[in-house]
């Protein structure tokens, strides 16, 4: 005997609302979708300045704005040091921060695969809220779609964000000048290695955690202190090396980096050695390079080191007047090598 009355009517019965997994109907615009929003997203994001229930959020602004968007498809969804939700908030917050902006609000779009566990979605929404609180940003509007089983990877998230840019802040590769000092806020390579180690089938045991963190506060800490920042870039996909190559090309200047000055944790280095990866090309989610005027460099470094997101900060290099547009890594061997972009992702080597 079923433990609840059976509906014998000919109409399509309302799907059971006590589902533990996402159904196609959760994206259909009907009752289930509203339940999903009310039970998952509203509790997670409530208490923030605007609710996510309306078609859009209305913002009253008259300032300079930074606007950015990014999509998150990380696999696995949960990894040591974070999950896709934290990543989706931090990533977009950090893109705003790299414009020198104070993050104001985010949108969040969810593409769910049919069959995705609702409890996982709840966990992810909660961690988005925690990350948003830490970054002092509100999630003000959103969207949910469900795709057929097998046509997604569990969950994808897109976030877009708006931030306010203070008067006089001009941060871009074009603002980089010869003599600028390159600062980095901590050790590199940890996020990529933590993700790789968490992947199924990878029998590498490590206690390494992703460095995933919101960086806006650390950046504003520098800007508020009047540090003359010329360029900022977070070292995500492609790692520190790719970030620097992009800036050197756009600035048409040479960046000289001292290999020994770039912090890499021993455990990160060890795993990278085993897999044949170069930690300078491994992704980070809480690291940025700051190009600051030489006169401000020492003070900027002290300020960074006093901030929780910059405790491991260091001075890693300098911009030279050479218009080569290259990044040269000075090894302790007295020889320089060029850092270039990789043509694709790093692939593990044979031997």
């Amino acid at each position: 005997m079923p433990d609840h009355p059976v509906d014998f009517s000919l109409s399509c019965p309302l799907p059971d609302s006590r589902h533990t997994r996402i159904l196609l109907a959760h994206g259909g615009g009907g009752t289930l979708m509203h339940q999903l929003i009310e039970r998952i997203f509203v509790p997670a994001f409530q208490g923030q300045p605007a609710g996510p229930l309306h078609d859009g959020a209305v913002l009253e602004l008259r300032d300079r704005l930074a606007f950015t968007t990014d999509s998150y498809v990380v696999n696995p969804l949960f990894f040591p040091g974070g999950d896709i939700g934290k990543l989706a908030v931090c990533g977009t917050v950090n893109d705003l921060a790299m414009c020198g902006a104070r993050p104001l609000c985010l949108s969040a779009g969810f593409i769910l695969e049919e069959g995705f566990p609702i409890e996982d979605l709840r966990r992810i929404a909660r961690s988005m809220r925690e990350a948003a609180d830490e970054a002092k940003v509100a999630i003000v509007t959103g969207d949910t779609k469900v795709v057929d089983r097998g046509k997604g990877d569990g969950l994808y998230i897109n976030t877009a964000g708006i931030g306010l840019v203070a008067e006089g802040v001009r941060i871009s590769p074009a603002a980089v000048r010869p003599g600028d000092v390159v600062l980095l806020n901590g050790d590199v390579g940890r996020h990529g290695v933590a993700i790789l180690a968490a992947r199924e089938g990878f029998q590498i045991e490590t206690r390494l955690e992703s460095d995933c963190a919101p960086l806006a506060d650390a950046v504003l800490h520098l800007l508020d202190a009047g540090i003359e920042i010329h360029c900022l870039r977070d070292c995500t996909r492609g790692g520190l090396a790719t970030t620097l190559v992009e800036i050197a090309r756009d600035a048409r200047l040479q960046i000289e980096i001292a290999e020994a000055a770039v912090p890499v944790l021993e455990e990160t280095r060890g795993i990278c050695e085993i897999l044949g990866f170069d930690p300078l090309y491994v992704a980070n989610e809480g690291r940025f390079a700051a190009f600051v005027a030489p006169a401000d460099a020492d003070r900027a470094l002290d300020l960074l080191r006093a901030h929780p997101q910059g405790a491991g900060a260091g001075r890693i290099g300098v911009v030279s007047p050479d218009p080569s547009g290259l990044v040269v890594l000075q090894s302790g061997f007295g020889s320089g090598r060029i850092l270039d972009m990789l043509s694709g992702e790093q692939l593990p080597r044979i031997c």
Partner: protein
Amino acid sequence: MKYLDEYRDPGVARQYAAAIARMVTRPWTLMEVCGGQTHAILRFGLDQLLPPEIALLHGPGCPVCVTPVELIDKALALAARPEVILASYGDMLRVPGTSGSLLSVKAAGGDVRIVYSPTDAAALAERHSERQVVFFAVGFETTAPANAMAVLQAERKRLRNFSLLVSHMLVPPALEALLASPNCHVQGFLAAGHVCTVMGFREYEAIAREHRTPIVVTGFEPLDILQGVHMCVKQLEEGRAEVENQYARSVRPEGNRAAQEAIRRVFRVSDRRWRGIGDIPRSGLALREEYQEFDAERRFPFVSEVVARESPDCISGLILQGLRKPRECPAFAAACTPETPLGATMVSDEGACAAYYRHRRP
């Protein structure tokens, strides 16, 4: 980091370079056999530390580079089949065949998976009993033992859906072929430390003696390579031609007997074609008769119909034989880049062209 930083000490490296410079009285041409050594040399700028008398040629020891284009094409044909999961080491995925690479077959819907060990590929076969798992077994003596173990495992577990596409090369016959070539300038070899970890170095003694060429079994870290150069130049200066072991922390004269036994059980010595170099007799491994059921070329006879063609503009053969440097190729960094490689030497992390492209372009 332990076992790493000790071998990357710049101060000691400079001392070694200075000792080599003090010793050398005339020009010498050495060849490092392994692509891993080539990359370390360019990455750490070791060639720039050496006195100008010492020329380093880059050898054929990059497994990705010397895998013949026919085998790549066979892998592409297999990967395109709906029933096949093609499992491969990551760096084979971008290697160009006659048309396309495993990455392009994957994008077109082929099931291509990166594995870190051939036993992972055997585990894939166990999990997907309805599919055929083919492991692309490339490499030298270093990868052969693990590939043999995967076959033995598959046999024990009676996996009927696991096979190897074998492209196994042996280093000593290639060195002999190089030395026998009339164009050969090589006066001393830095032999590949990992190959010798498996095989030992007894089989190099006859080569050193007959060709009067010193061979120093050498590791892969900067100080390993500089010490290997030092030992090799010392032999040349003293008129000796012996086999010496720089990489004694890993290599024993007799090698790893258990690994050799696994190779012998599963594989037999066979003729092989080397990409860019040509056919070298008895320079490879093939599955023994009793393990034919694990041979992908037998299981899928259609792959023998593959017709392969090399890019006429690629001179990787000359580069792999040490007859040209990458920058002497007109296509280098022009028509041929890591994004649009004409030959495998531009693809692999261990390929000489890729090493020059990454570290020494302008």
